[in-house]
């Protein structure tokens, strides 16, 4: 069983993100960058599946020079090998271009399963994994809060507002996992040291057999506006009727 896991390097979510006024894109240079916390769940899920099936995990990331660090981190957590797509011409890629590149990387790795986060912490479109599945012609299973493999199928509990749906598909397939699906491990010291001797490839657009011309962004951020200020709440003074007032208000909002 070979499992590919997508990992993205993002500006540290605990810092204040900044947009470039010229492009309206997130500033990624000169800021702290980290493994997308959402992707840590994907790595853990992939590692658990691989451990249960004596399989291997291959990390795939597309990103700038520093994205190598998140590939290394996933390898230190236990992934057997890594693939970093790094090409200056990919700077500023949109979700579709990202998906095209990742799909080509997946074809090269030829895994039985791809695990990704539900949405990234920075771009947050939540479209890349499904687009990759579409480009590969593989089933896409999203919002998995539990996943298991048996024979040639993957079965997931897909989070819904009411609970979960059971969804099953034949392999190969692409699965996105939700935060909290597991408790991601930290790399151990031996993992960190061992990761250095395992294979890590860095590939360009051409190495993947792609044409740079087909990867130019189709998406442009036209305008950016701050989120609306939150309205002041309503204060209910308790004169004995507060419980009733609050209950009525919640009923009006259809919360209860």
């Amino acid at each position, binding site marked *: 069983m070979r499992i590919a896991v997508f990992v993205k390097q993002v500006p540290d979510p605990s810092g204040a993100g900044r947009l470039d006024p010229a492009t309206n894109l997130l500033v990624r240079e000169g800021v702290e960058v980290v493994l997308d916390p959402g992707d840590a769940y994907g790595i853990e899920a992939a590692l658990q599946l691989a451990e249960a099936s004596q399989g291997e995990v291959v990390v795939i990331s597309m990103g700038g020079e520093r994205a190598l660090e998140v590939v290394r981190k996933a390898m230190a957590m236990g992934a057997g090998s890594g693939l970093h797509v790094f090409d200056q011409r990919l700077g500023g890629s949109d979700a579709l271009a990202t998906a095209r590149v990742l799909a080509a990387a997946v074809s090269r790795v030829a895994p039985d399963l791809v695990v990704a986060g539900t949405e990234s912490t920075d771009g947050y479109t939540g479209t890349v994994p499904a687009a990759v599945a579409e480009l590969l012609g593989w089933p896409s299973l999203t919002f998995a809060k539990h996943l298991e493999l048996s024979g040639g199928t993957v079965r997931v509990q897909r989070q819904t507002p009411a609970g979960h749906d059971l969804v099953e598909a034949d392999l190969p397939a692409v699965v996105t996992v939700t935060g909290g699906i597991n408790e991601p491990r*930290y*790399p*151990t*010291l*031996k993992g*960190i*040291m061992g990761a250095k001797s395992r294979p890590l490839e860095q590939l360009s657009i051409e190495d993947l057999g792609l044409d740079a011309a087909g990867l130019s962004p189709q998406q442009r951020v036209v305008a950016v506006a701050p989120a609306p200020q939150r309205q002041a709440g309503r204060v209910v003074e308790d004169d004995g009727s507060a419980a009733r007032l609050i209950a009525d208000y919640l009923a009006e909002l259809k919360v209860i």
Partner: protein
Amino acid sequence: MDFECDEDQVALRQLATDVAGRVDDKYWQDIDQNYRFPSEFWASLAKHDLLGIAVPEEFGGSGRSLLDMAIAVEALSEGGAGMEGGALFVSGPVFGGCLLTRHGSRAQQEAYLPGLVSGDLWAGAFTEPDAGSNITMIRTQATRKGDSYLINGQKVFISQMTNSRRIVVMARTAAYDAGHRTAGISLLLGDLPSPAVEARPFKKMGNHFMDTSQVYFTDYEVPVENVVGEAGNAWAPMYDVLNPERIILAATAVGTGNLALRKAVEYASQRQVWGRPIGAHQGLQFPLAEARVNLATARLQVYEAAWLYDRGRECGVQAAMAKYAASHAALVAADCAIQTLGGAGYISESGIERHWRNLRLNRIAPVTDEMTLNYIAQHDLGMPRSY
């Protein structure tokens, strides 16, 4: 000269910071208030391979160095684990790891090091009531009987007796000789618990994560092959424990001092009294900045001492200086942090006063300020031995 950490050291520091960050200050407050051993944290250290940093790979460790251990310890302490998180390394990686890696027989290394890496706790019993700082005056006896030694005597202020599985005992295997004071002293390895070893813990000012006991040995039997190095000739091996112990506790102090400073700076930037953050007052900034200077300087001395140790070079003076500088810098840093928090600094829940209580120990143990200065005067300044 190269001040750059290598890639592994950067990753190790990050790992240690992450491990410390998994535990919040409530955890340590609970440990402090209930005099409890932090078994969950200790297990986490083992799980992330941190106890075996300097243990050779063939015995389950990562085969790195004392410098790397110091880097990890500093990051654990600074990352939130304070004195507790760093000082724990004495009780295994130092007492057992440093000792056996350099001076253990092959059989001792095979028997003890893998367990140490996976979490055996170690005690080291050196100090005695009637010897104190003058350790050559110890009276605990190890008497040969067939293939064993029988240990009899009394030790004082011995840490981690309740939870330790192994103990290193310093005892006399030959009578005191005024002409050669250090001759006849041996280090012996024993297993715990044992009915022949009784420990009575004290109540104490801080460092409640470890118990500290009066210990009585009554015919405590250890096999002859458990003598570390040569019987009666333990002085050199002993310094390969005492120097790393000073270095690791100094790294702990530097990390803990910086933790206290960080808490103080955070508080000072939020707390408003005269319509602006108290941290805007130079009167608060100067002591914190000065503490920072002393911590940074102490850290360099810690790294240099560890670096020398790793190369098998003489490091006694540097270890003593590191320990002295770090103990003082950290204690003052914690004191400034308390002052910065005002009344809140005195309240346990704020998580500051504990550091001060814990750090106060470093001026006394593992060696007192005065004995440290005695050593530096003699061995670095070349002044006459005064003690």
